Every structure is written in structure tokens, then in C-alpha cells.
């Protein structure tokens, strides 16, 4: 594997000591954001990355991290102010979620994130894209795509946990664009990505929002295999 030579170099030292305060809303660039990073999320990342983690633990802790990313991603959905009356008759100035979001998972690893989304939004519509790479040319090819009919008018949570090169995301975004979805309405929910992939995607689609837990020179591999137990 060529990535084996890459050394984690540019990471500042304090990254490795326990955090006093969680880091919230850390924008890497305008459209690349980390979920709030706490020692807790770092523990989850560690377990997911670790070699000796059992499959049961891998799924359990990946699900927890996915849930966090989903919750954070939902904050990009639209809302309007709403005032409600509480049971004791007082008013509460709240807000109401506005319909108009949907999820799109990239088969297969992206599907691991569907449960997390479903747990937060009981009846959200979820589309799917199947992209396969040609073994020889490494060219990504869309095999299957199914979206809600009005996907063009929705905000899309694009689900894909590991992004090493960005090729798949670029391809998926193109498919969505072909169905009328604007890149600024796409939020990529991601667990781990590489700086290379981030650059690649933001160069191609500067308007697309990337939400991730870690940008690191090496992203974990075989996520889908480990999650679904087909390794």
C-alpha cells in the first residue's frame, strides 16, 4: 500500500493531549467542518482505527460516532421560528424543522450510516447510489442511482464514512447535480478523510459542505467490510 509511507507530520503537538474544552465548529476551510471534537470523539476514533478492535466493538463505536455526525449534519437543515405553549401554560420561543431534507447513501459503506440518520429522523427519505471502480483503470462508474423524485428541491445529506481520494464523492455529486441538486445543498457526512481528498472535492465543488470527524493523512480502510462483516 502506498499510503503506508505517509507519516502524520503536520499535526500540532497539543492534538495528542487530553482536551480541556471541546473544539466546536472548527472550520478547516469555508465548507469543510469538523463536528465538535472532544476527548470522547477521539476515543471513538481510536477504537475504530485500532487494529485489534473486535467487530462487535467496531460496529458499536462506529454507530456512536456516526450518530454524532448525523446530529451535527442535521443542524444544516432549514428551520423557522415557532412559539409553543408548554404544559404549564407558559410560552417557549422555539423553532420548527422545515421539511425539505433527504439522505443519500453511497453503497455500500455509506449504508452503514443510514441507521444513524433513521434514528434521528424517523421518516426521512433516503436515496442510494452505487458506484464501482474499474479494477484496471481505477475509474469510478455509477452503476445504480435512485433518489426521491423531488430531490432537486431538497437538502441532501450525502453519506460516505471514509474518503481517501475523493473520487467517489466527486462522482456521486455529479450524479446528484445531473438530478438537479445544487452542490451548495449537499452536505457530506463523513467519519474520516484525507487532506488530499478534501482538496480534491473542494476543488471540484467549492460549494459542497464536508462534515467530518478527522482530516488525517491516513484514513482507515475496509470500513464497509468490517462493519458488515464480509472481510
Amino acid at each position: 500500500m502506498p499510503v503506508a509511507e505517509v507519516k502524520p507530520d503536520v499535526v500540532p503537538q497539543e492534538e495528542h493531549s487530553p482536551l480541556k474544552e471541546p473544539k466546536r465548529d472548527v472550520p478547516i476551510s469555508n465548507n469543510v467542518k469538523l463536528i465538535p471534537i472532544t476527548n470522547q470523539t477521539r476515543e471513538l476514533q481510536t477504537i475504530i482505527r485500532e487494529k485489534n478492535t473486535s467487530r462487535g466493538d467496531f460496529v458499536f463505536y462506529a454507530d456512536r460516532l456516526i450518530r454524532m455526525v448525523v446530529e451535527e449534519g442535521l443542524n444544516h437543515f432549514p428551520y423557522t421560528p415557532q412559539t409553543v405553549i408548554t404544559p404549564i401554560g407558559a410560552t417557549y420561543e422555539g423553532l420548527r424543522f422545515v421539511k425539505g431534507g433527504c439522505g443519500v447513501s453511497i453503497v455500500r459503506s455509506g449504508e452503514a450510516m443510514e441507521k444513524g440518520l433513521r434514528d434521528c429522523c424517523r421518516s426521512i427519505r433516503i436515496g442510494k447510489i452505487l458506484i464501482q471502480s474499474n479494477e484496471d483503470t481505477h475509474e469510478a462508474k455509477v452503476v445504480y442511482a435512485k433518489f426521491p423524485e423531488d430531490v432537486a428541491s431538497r437538502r441532501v445529506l450525502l453519506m460516505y464514512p471514509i474518503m481517501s481520494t475523493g473520487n467517489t464523492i466527486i462522482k456521486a455529486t455529479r450524479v446528484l447535480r445531473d438530478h438537479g441538486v445544487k452542490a451548495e445543498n449537499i452536505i457530506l457526512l463523513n467519519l474520516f478523510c484525507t487532506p488530499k481528498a478534501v482538496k480534491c472535492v473542494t476543488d471540484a465543488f467549492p460549494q459542497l459542505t464536508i462534515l467530518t470527524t478527522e482530516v488525517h493523512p491516513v484514513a482507515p480502510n475496509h470500513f464497509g467490510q468490517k462493519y458488515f462483516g464480509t472481510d
Partner: protein
Amino acid sequence: MVAVTGRDPPSSASSECSENSEDFGGGTIDVQLEFETKVETPTSPSASRNQNKTHRRERTFSASSNKGDPPVIRTRQRTIYTAGRPPWYDKHGQTIEPFVIGICGGSASGKTTVAKKIIEALNVPWVTLLSMDSFYKVLNEDQHEQAEKNKYNFDHPDAFDFDLLIDTLKKLKEGKRVEVPVYNFVTHAREKRFKFMYGANVIIFEGILCFAHKDLLDMMDMKAFIDTDSDIRLARRLKRDISERGRDLIGCLSQYERFVKPSYDLHIAPTMRHADLVVPRGGENTVAIDLIVHHVHAQLQARGLKLRSALAEIHNDQPMPTSLHILPETSQVRGIHTFIRNRDTDRDSFIFYSKRLMRLLIEESLSLLPFKQIIVETQQNLVYEGMKSGAGKICGVSILRAGETMEQALCDVLKNVRLGKILIQTNTMTGEPELYYLRLPKDIQDYRIFLMDATVATGAASMMAIRVLLDHDVPEDNITLCSLLMASSGVQSIAYAFPKVQIVTTAVDPEINDKFYIKPGIGNFGDRYFGTEAISYS
């Protein structure tokens, strides 16, 4: 006297139970906390399973179940709790030091009778009666044989385990739970089970030599000596030993002459000078008992127990404490709040959205625990510097009923988490919280505790739960209180009383209404979640 009259034994704040299970429910005063089980000694799993079967909790005497009765009885400006345990600490969370009455006197002088009469006349809900008889030393074989021949001196100070006694009384005075040995007068050994006792508003401590040690005298707030004529005492003693304990006259008399009388003259009678008052004729002396009761009442009145309303009033307009951590208010958090606060939200959605919020709350609370740095090898055989929880074992403790709704969220993120439960109910007549039931892991002091309650208004129930945990020796800074919604006065009260307890919530509301509901609030969370609310809130 209301519920105690005619019943035996007297009201006392003690319980005997297994596995730290403490059931505060029950019928009338005299049965609260009075039940008995064997303490399980953990052996092999199969053995303990068998024990579970055979050693179920049994009541030593039947509880008259007065379910329909009101939870309090008011007499002469006093309130008697007939079910749960009322607060035993003040608004600052500090235990109110119990009033300790020492009753000394010769054998068969009527100490227990006086103690019972005081309990009846006192009319306070929580009285612990501690007897020196529980603290006889365990006899070895020789001594046991001597005892059989009436040749062991049970009336000498050496016969008592004063160290354990002093330690027990000290802990009771601090409001902590104690294990009182159960002494068997046939085998002259301590039984395997214990009697659990709690410090109460009043502790009555009686025994023939209870004035014999300076440390004991120092802990007593009032000392009474029962001075009954020696002829009467001997007569009573003979009657009791012969007719109740099946002993013979000669043996009893020889023991009396040999040990009881000399010990009285040498060790007991001289301690009379320590007494604040001497009660001649024992239990018949109603004037003396009345005097004692009057004095205790005056002392108790000065300490006061109006907790909840006191809590609602204090600490306004102060900055929020540093031990408070509020979940950042994102649009999702506010949107979820809008759903669950709205009185028109159906239960299906109410449950769904409160569960989502609980998950966020628990994840946030976990992130505040200590972590340590570790280095792991990744799947690609690279070195990765990561984090690992340094918090140790975690135990969730939910405050029933609403706190129980959060257990699932905790289990969803922590594998193998242990769960304890505390039932605290608000007494509808006094508005005060009362402790009814608690079940915690044996080694609760070794865990980091996530104390869970859905809503915190005045903080009275949470404070009681924290107090319970502290009384079980959990360090204060090992407690995290997790709550979906809190009123600012509740936050202030808890943080003021227990500054080291970490408080995590998703929102803090400014006010409490006159029914102690948070305003604007969320209504009665438990009722809405479990669907037990009255037909309509309006």
C-alpha cells in the same frame, strides 16, 4: 401518639436487608425500614443464586398496609411522615446533626421503656434506637463455657466492643449508613446478618455502660440516668430471666451477686454524675419524660426541615456556577426542545425527541470525564495517537420515575454499565421529597456515578439522591448529574451544596412556578413519557 401506639418494636430508622437494597416503603411509621434478611455473602455464582431463592426479604412483623392513608399526619404543628424518609440534611446539603439522647441505668432499670416512651411522646418520624446489647464482644470457647455456668461477667466494660460502638455512633451522627451487628445471646456470637441503620432526627442510645466512655459522652446531646431502686431491678431481672429466658433461680442469683451488683456499684452508679438529669422510677416517671421531650422539641425546632421552599427561595440572580455544563444550543437541540416542551405534542413524538435529546446529553456528559492518551496500532499497521477513557467503572443511578427514562440512552453508549435506582417521591401534602427505595451496587463508592433525572426544578430530589450517594461513601467529585432541563434555582442550590458535583443539562430555565414546576418548562416529564398524566393540563 398516632401510628406507633401499641406496636412493638418502636419506630426506628433501621433496616436489615441484602444487597444494599433499602425499601423505604411500607405502611405506617412503625414498619418503615423494619424488615429483615440475611446478608448475602458472594461465593460461587450458583451458590448466590440459591441464596437469592432462600434469602428473600422477609418482614419480621407484618406491615399493616395503609395504602389509602395520607402520606403525612399532622399533629400539634408537627408533621409525621408515614412512608418515605424525609430530608435529613439542610438546604446546603449538609446533614443536620441528629440529636443524641443517651440513656444509662442499671440492668432492668427500665431504660428501654423510657426510650420507647420518649419515642412515642416525641412524635418525630425518624428515630434511631441503638442498644448497647448489640455490641457485646464475641466470646471464645472458654468464655462461652463460663457464660453457660453464669461465670462470665456481662456487666463489665470489657464485655463490650467500645471501638465499634464509638465508630457506629459517630457515623450515625454524621448521617451515614451503619451496619449494626446482631448479637445472639445463645451462641454469644454475632450473626452473619447486619442491621442497617441510618442517622435520624433523633438517636436514642441506651445501655448499662453507655456513660462509661468519654468519646460516647462527648457525642451525646442529652444524658439521662434511670435510677430505679435496686430491689425492683432485681425483682424484674429474676422475673425476666426465669420466666422469659428459662433460667434457674440459683444461677440468676449467683450471677447477680457475683457480677451484676458489683459492676453496678463499681462501673454504672458512678457514671450518674455525667447525667444531665436523673430519672427515678424509670418509665413510670411521666414528668421526667415530659421534660426530656420538651427539651428535644425545642432543639429540633431550631434546626428546621422546610427544605423545598427554602431551596426555591435562595440563590437568585447569581452567576451560573462553574460546575454547570450546558449542551451547546444548536438548531437541532432547540428544535427538539420545541417538540418536547409543546403541550400539544403527542406522546409518540414526545418520547422520540426526548430520547434523541437524552442521547446528546449522555454523549456530552461522557465527553467531560477524564481521558488519557494512548498509542495504538491501526489496521494499516501505523501508529496512531489516540484517547482512552480514564474514568474507570461507570454506574448510572436513576431517580425514579422520570430518571429511569434515561437509562436506555446510557446503555446505548456504554456497554456493561451498571444501573442503580433511587425512588424519591414528592410528598403531595408537604411538597418535600421523600426517599422510598434504593438499590445500588455493593461497591458503589468505586464507581463514577451518572445520576440521572429528567428534570430538576428546586433540586430537592437531586440533592437527596446526591446525599444518599455521599452517605454511601461515593466521593463528591465522582458524581455527574445529568438532566434534560433544569431551573436556574435548582442549579444554584445543587452547585452551592455540592460544588464538586458536575452538572450537565441541555437547557436552564429561569423560573419555578408556585407548584414547583419549571417555567416555561416541560410539564411533568414522567407523566408525559409514561402516559400517566391527568386527562388535560388545562
